[in-house]
């Protein structure tokens, strides 16, 4: 089995370079045979797509998708500078 370090790098690179994701904002941590994905994205489909791409890049490992959804709310209070 590859060292966790290289697995994490491979997944990170797949997320960035795969045409389906082109995602640079996800943290990838590998512990043993588990991959943890953390970050924030704007759509539920995107969250699942990132999980798919990560799974393909590291077959056989169990993926923990801890990516949360950004809820794009109405703008809040203005800030006075």
């Amino acid at each position: 089995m590859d060292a966790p370090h290289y697995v994490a790098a491979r997944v990170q690179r797949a997320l960035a370079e795969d045409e389906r994701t082109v995602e640079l904002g996800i943290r990838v941590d590998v512990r043993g045979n588990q991959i943890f994905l953390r970050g924030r994205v704007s759509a539920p489909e995107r969250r699942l797509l990132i999980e798919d791409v990560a799974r393909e890049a590291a077959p056989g490992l169990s993926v923990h998708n801890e990516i949360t959804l950004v809820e794009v709310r109405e703008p809040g209070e203005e800030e006075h500078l």
Partner: protein
Amino acid sequence: MTETRIAAVADIHMGEDLRGHFRPKLHGIENRAEVLLVGGDLTRHGTVAEGRVVADELRDLPIPVIAVLGNHDYHSDAEQAITAILRDAGVTVLDDEATILSLDGTTLGVVGGKGFGGGFAGKCASEFGEPETKAFVRHTRQIADRWRRALKELDTDHRIVLSHYSPVKDTLMGEPTEIYPFLGSYLLAEAADEEGADLIVHGHAHLGTEKGLTPGGIQVRNVAVPVIGSAYTVYCLNGA
């Protein structure tokens, strides 16, 4: 004393699947702000098709829209085409240059460009060694020089710098420190500190935090959508 209200957002990362999703959130923006700044990463892959989606989302807003591109918008080598499409839609796209708006008797100057990386004082790359390393750092330095010149020439009541990359570390809090050199450069802050500005707005650091300050005391705001969690945030500058 009239206030100038600046709406700002970055990293909207539009694609065909998000067509029509962003525009409705800008409804009524003219009642909340005098101008909208968009800090780059308008697209995901930097394709012309995605550029058209962005243009349609921003077209004919009741307030002026000023934008810069981000690294994603360069990914398909179509940055010039995207810039032209946005300009056709009435968006002012800044590429290391300034624009001046006259808002209700107050003048606002915005200097902008995508910026670049290199890291932060004491922990940054320098123009030394291999040509690739020199080119990386030189790119940022040349951008900072152009911003410095543009700021020097701006004689407006207010001055804002609009960037994609971050000028400070403060607003990167939450990102792994190992990648800070790819998230911004202190050279961008140094240029603004030398010439003075009221606010620096940027994006790029999706895991970062909103508020920061340059060493010279200029307010910095990271307005990446995942950071602000809304379609834009409004910052008010006091009357001049």
